[in-house]
C-alpha cells in the first residue's frame, strides 16, 4: 500500500504546484545490498535515460565485500551535461533496510522516497514524498527461480522509477535486451516485472512527483563505457602482445576487459590462435618482472594494479628506469596509504609513483582525464614507453576506471606504432658500431638491440648496476655521472614528448585552476559556478609527468593558481612548486580526500573561501 501525504500534513517546504517540475536536472540514488544483483537494475535505468538523449553519469559506491553490505548507486541526470558527483540526491530508492533510516534522513526537502514496503521508518519525515512498493510480492509473482528473487525485487524499482519520472518503457526494454545480449527469456522475465511495477505505481501513486525526464538530444552519437574497459581496448589497438597481472581492486577489470577484447580482436582468423599472451602471476613483483622481461625482449607489455601493487613494484620500477626497459603500468588509484579503502577513489599515488624507486629516479606518468583518454593513452603509452625506453605509468583511478561515462566513439590511433630506437641486424651491420648506452642523437635516448639479433656486436648485458656506454659494469665516477646525467636529459626530452596540458586561458583572469584525471568534470562545473559569482578562471588540465614549460607560463600568467586534487597531501601541488620554485608561493592547494569524488560545490566554496582570506598555502614540506 502507498503513502499519500494528505493535504493537511503536506509540508510547507514541499514544491508548490505553481512552481514547474524539475526536468532532466536531478539525481537519484539506489540504496541496496551488494551481491543482490542491483547492478542490472541500475545499469538499465542509466542506459534507458542515456538513450532518451539525456546526459547521465552513474557512480557506484560499493563496499570492499562480496555480498551483504550496503551499496549506493547514484545516477545524475543533467540537461547541462554535468557529469561530476553531486551531493544532493532528490530521489531515494530505499531498498536496504540496514541503511533506509539514514538514507531517508539525508534526503533534501521535497525529495521522493521510493521504498520497499516491508521497511518501517522510525522517524518518518513529512517533507518528502513517499512511494512504497510491494517488491517481494511482485518478485514472487514474476514466477522467477527462487534464487533470483532478490534480483527481481530490484527490477520492481526500475518499473516504479520509470513510471514516476517518465522514462520510456521501450528504452527500458532496449536496455534489458542490450544487457542480456538479446536473451529473450531473461529479458521477458525482467521486463515483465518492470511493467507490472510500472502499472502498480500508476494505479497506487496518487501524489504528484515534481521531477521528471524528457527526451532530449544531449547524447547523440555517444556511448557509455567505463575507463578500465576503455584502457584495455586502447591497449589492444596499441598492439599489446604481453600482459601479466595480479588481481586487485579497482584494477582487475582492466585485465578482465583486456582478456575479453583480445579474444575478439586478436586471434588468427585461420587458426584461432592468439597473437598475445596473458599470464596471471603470483604477485605484483612477478607481474612487473614478467613485463620487463617481455619489454626487454621487444614486446609491448603491460600490467595493471593499484596502490599496494605499486609499492611491491618499487624495486623493479627503479630497475626499469635505470636499465631503460619499456613497460606500461596502469595504476588504478584507490585510497591509500596501505591497504586503505579498496573500493574508494583517490589520486594519492602521484608523488610516490613519480619518484618510485630508491636512489635518484623519475618516472614518466600519464594522467587520463576521461574514458576517451583512457583509450588513447591505452595505445599511446606503448609508443612513449618504447620511444623513451622506460616504464610508463598511467595513473587512472577508481571513479574513472570503474564507473560508466558518456563519450564520443574512440578515435582510431592517428599515427603508426612508434617502436623507438631499435636496431635490427641489417641496420646494425650497416651502422657497424653499437654501444647500448651511447647518446648518439643528443636527446638522452640511446639505441637498443633485441635478443635474437644475429649481427655481430648486437649483444649487450642488461643490468641494474652502474655501467658504461657499452653496458659493462663500471665503478668509474665519470661513467656513473655521465649515465645518470643522460638519464635526466632523457627525462627532459620526455617533457616534450608526453601529452601537453590542455589549457583554457581566460583573458585577464586573475585566478587559474590546475587539475588532472577524474577531477576534470568537477572543474568544468566549478568554473561555471564561479562565473556566476563573478569570478572568471583559467584552467589547465595536466595530462602527464614530467611537467613542461607551458606550466610556467600558465602560472606566471595568474596571480594565484589553485591545484585541485583528490589526495590529502596536495601531491601535484608539491610537484608544481618544485617545477616552478619562483612561483611556489602563489601555488595553492585544494586537496581533499575522503573516498568520494570531488563535487563542484565543495571546490567552489573552497576557492571562494581562500579568495576571501587570501590565505597563503603554508608549510607543507
Amino acid at each position, binding site marked *: 500500500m502507498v503513502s499519500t501525504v494528505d493535504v493537511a500534513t503536506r509540508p510547507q517546504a514541499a514544491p508548490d504546484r505553481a512552481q514547474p517540475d524539475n526536468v532532466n536536472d536531478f539525481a537519484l540514488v539506489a540504496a541496496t545490498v551488494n551481491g543482490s544483483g542491483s547492478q542490472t537494475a541500475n545499469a538499465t535505468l542509466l542506459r534507458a535515460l542515456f538513450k532518451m538523449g539525456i546526459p547521465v553519469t552513474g557512480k557506484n559506491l560499493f563496499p570492499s565485500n562480496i555480498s551483504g553490505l550496503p551499496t549506493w548507486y547514484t545516477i545524475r541526470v543533467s540537461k547541462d551535461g554535468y557529469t561530476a558527483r553531486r551531493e544532493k540526491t532528490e530521489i531515494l530508492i530505499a531498498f536496504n533496510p540496514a541503511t533506509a533510516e539514514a538514507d531517508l534522513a539525508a534526503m533534501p526537502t521535497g525529495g521522493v522516497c521510493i521504498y520497499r514496503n516491508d521497511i518501517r521508518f522510525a522517524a518518518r519525515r513529512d517533507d518528502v514524498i513517499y512511494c512504497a512498493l510491494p517488491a517481494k510480492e511482485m518478485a514472487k509473482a514474476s514466477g522467477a527461480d527462487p534464487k533470483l528473487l532478490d534480483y527481481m525485487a530490484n527490477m520492481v524499482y526500475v518499473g516504479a522509477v520509470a513510471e514516476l519520472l517518465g522514462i520510456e518503457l521501450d528504452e527500458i526494454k532496449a536496455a534489458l535486451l542490450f544487457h542480456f545480449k538479446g536473451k529473450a527469456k531473461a529479458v521477458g522475465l525482467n521486463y515483465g516485472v518492470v511493467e507490472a511495477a510500472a502499472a502498480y505505481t500508476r494505479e497506487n501513486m496518487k501524489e504528484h512527483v515534481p521531477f521528471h525526464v524528457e527526451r532530449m538530444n544531449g547524447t547523440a552519437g*555517444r*556511448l*557509455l563505457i567505463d575507463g578500465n574497459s576503455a584502457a584495455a*581496448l586502447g591497449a589492444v*589497438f*596499441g*598492439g*599489446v*602482445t*604481453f600482459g*601479466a597481472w595480479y588481481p586487485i581492486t579497482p584494477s582487475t577489470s582492466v585485465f578482465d576487459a583486456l582478456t575479453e577484447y583480445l579474444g*575478439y*580482436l*586478436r586471434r*588468427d582468423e585461420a*587458426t584461432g*590462435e*592468439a*597473437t*598475445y*599472451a*596473458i*599470464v596471471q*602471476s*603470483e604477485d605484483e*613483483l*612477478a607481474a*612487473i*618482472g*614478467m*613485463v*620487463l*622481461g*617481455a619489454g*626487454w*625482449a*621487444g*614486446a*609491448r*607489455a603491460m600490467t595493471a594494479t593499484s596502490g599496494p601493487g605499486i609499492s611491491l613494484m618499487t624495486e*623493479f620500477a627503479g*630497475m626499469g628506469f635505470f636499465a631503460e626497459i619499456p613497460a606500461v603500468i596502469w595504476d588504478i588509484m584507490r585510497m591509500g596509504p596501505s591497504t586503505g579503502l579498496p573500493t574508494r577513489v583517490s589520486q594519492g599515488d602521484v608523488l610516490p609513483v613519480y619518484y618510485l624507486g630508491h636512489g635518484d629516479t623519475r618516472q614518466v606518468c600519464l594522467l587520463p582525464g576521461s574514458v576517451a583518454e583512457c583509450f588513447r593513452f591505452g595505445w599511446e603509452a606503448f609508443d612513449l614507453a618504447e620511444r623513451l625506453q622506460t616504464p610508463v605509468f598511467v595513473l587512472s583511478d577508481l571513479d574513472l576506471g570503474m564507473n560508466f561515462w558518456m563519450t564520443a566513439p*574512440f578515435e*582510431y*590511433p592517428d599515427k603508426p*606504432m612508434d617502436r623507438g630506437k631499435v636496431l635490427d641486424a641489417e641496420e646494425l651491420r650497416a651502422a657497424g658500431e653499437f654501444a647500448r648506452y651511447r647518446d648518439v642523437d643528443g636527446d638522452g635516448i640511446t639505441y637498443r*638491440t*633485441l*635478443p*635474437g*639479433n*644475429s*649481427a655481430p656486436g*648486437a*649483444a*649487450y*648485458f*642488461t*643490468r*641494474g648496476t652502474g655501467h658504461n656506454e657499452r653496458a659493462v659494469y663500471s665503478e668509474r665516477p665519470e661513467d656513473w655521472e655521465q649515465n645518470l646525467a643522460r638519464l635526466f636529459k632523457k627525462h627532459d626530452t620526455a617533457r616534450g614528448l608526453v601529452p601537453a596540458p590542455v589549457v583554457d586561458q581566460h583573458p585577464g583572469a586573475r585566478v587559474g585552476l590546475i587539475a588532472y584525471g577524474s577531477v576534470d568534470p568537477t572543474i568544468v562545473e566549478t568554473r561555471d559556478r564561479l562565473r556566476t559569482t563573478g569570478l572568471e578562471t583559467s584552467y589547465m588540465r595536466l595530462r602527464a609527468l614530467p611537467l613542461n614549460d607551458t606550466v610556467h607560463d600558465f602560472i606566471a600568467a595568474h596571480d594565484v593558481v589553485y591545484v585541485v586534487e583528490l589526495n590529502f597531501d596536495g601531491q601535484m601541488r608539491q610537484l608544481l612548486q618544485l617545477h616552478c620554485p619562483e612561483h611556489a608561493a602563489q601555488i595553492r592547494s585544494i586537496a581533499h580526500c575522503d573516498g568520494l569524488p570531488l563535487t563542484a560545490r565543495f571546490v567552489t566554496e573552497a576557492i571562494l573561501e581562500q579568495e576571501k582570506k587570501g590565505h597563503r598555502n603554508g608549510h607543507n614540506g
Partner: protein
Amino acid sequence: MVTTANPPAAPAPGAKVNLIGLEKNDYKGNPSTLCQGCGHDSISAQIMAVAYELSLPPHRIIKMSGIGCSSKSPAYFLNRSHGFNALHGRMPSVVTGATTVNSDLVALAVSGDGDTGSIGLGQYKHLLRRNVPMVYIIENNGVYGLTKGQFSATADMGQKLKYAGTNELPPIDLCMEALIAGCGFIARSFAGDAKQVRELLKAAFNYKGTAVLDIISPCVTFNNHEDSTKSYTYGKAHEERLHDITFVPKFEEINVDYEPGTMINVKLHDGPTIQLHKLGEDYDPTDRTAAMRRLEEAEAQQEFMTGLIYINEGRPTLGEVQHMVSTPLVQLSPERVRPSREALVRMMTDLS
C-alpha cells in the same frame, strides 16, 4: 632443439669450428672477476664447452641471472648472447616474460642458492609450476658469497661458518622443491665433476620445459673447509653418482649395445637420447615416486647424490598452454597486432 637453426657460416680458414661454423672463442665471455678457484668459474667453462659442442647459435641464447657471485657469471661466458642481470631473487619472472614473447630464444639462467632458495623461493616455485622453457642452473654453495659468507637456505644443519656461527635450520632441498612443483627435468651435480655437468647440460638444452640443475659449486673463500658439505674435498670424497650419463645427439647412431638391464635410454621430444649407464643401483629417473623416495633417503643419510634425478617431458610448457600463433609474438607485423579501423568501428557500435 636449436642446434641446426642457423645456416653454417664460412669457417675461418684452418680454425676448428662447430656445425654452425663458430670457433670455441665465439663462446667466450669477459675475464672472470670471481675468486681464483670458485666453483662458479668451472661451471662457466662447461657452459662454453657445451654451447660450442651443441653448436648453439649464441644470438638465440639469453643469459639470465639474479644477484650474487653466481649471478655475475653470465658476464664471463657467451659474450655474443644478450644477458639480463635482474634483481635479487627475481630472475624467474623476467625469464617468463622474455621467453613467452619470443619462443625462438633459448634461456640459460644462472642463479645461486641464496638467489633461488632464500629471497627467490616463491618465484622459483611458481616458475616451475608454469614449466617455462629454460635451463635453470643453481650454483649452490650453501652461502651468500657476494655478501661475504652468511648462511643461505641450503646450508646444512649444524654447519659452522667463520662469521655466521652455527646454522640451526634445516636445509631446503631445491631438487625436492622442484619435484613437487611439477618440474620435469631435475638433476644434481658437482662443479668438480666436469663431465657429468657437461652431459647434464646437453640434456637440459634439449629438454622442452624447465630443466633444473642444482650444481654444488664450492665457495673457496667462505665455505670450502673440509667439514663443509659444500667443499671440494667433501664433494670429491662423497659424490655418489646415480648413473653414468651420456648425451647422444639425434644425428648420432647408437650402435654399441649393452647387456640388458645395464642401461636406460631416455628419448627426448625431438630425437636426441640420454643414456644412463647403471652403476651401483637400479634407478629409473622417469619414476616420480621413486625420485621422491630417493631424494628423501639421500637427505636423511646426508648422501651427496648426483645425476639425473627425474625426467618427464609430459607436461605442457607455459608457451603451449597459451595457445599462441607459431610466429614468436615479437616478430608479428604491425597489421597482426593492431586491429583495423573497421574493427574499432565495430566495437564502438557494439558498445553503443
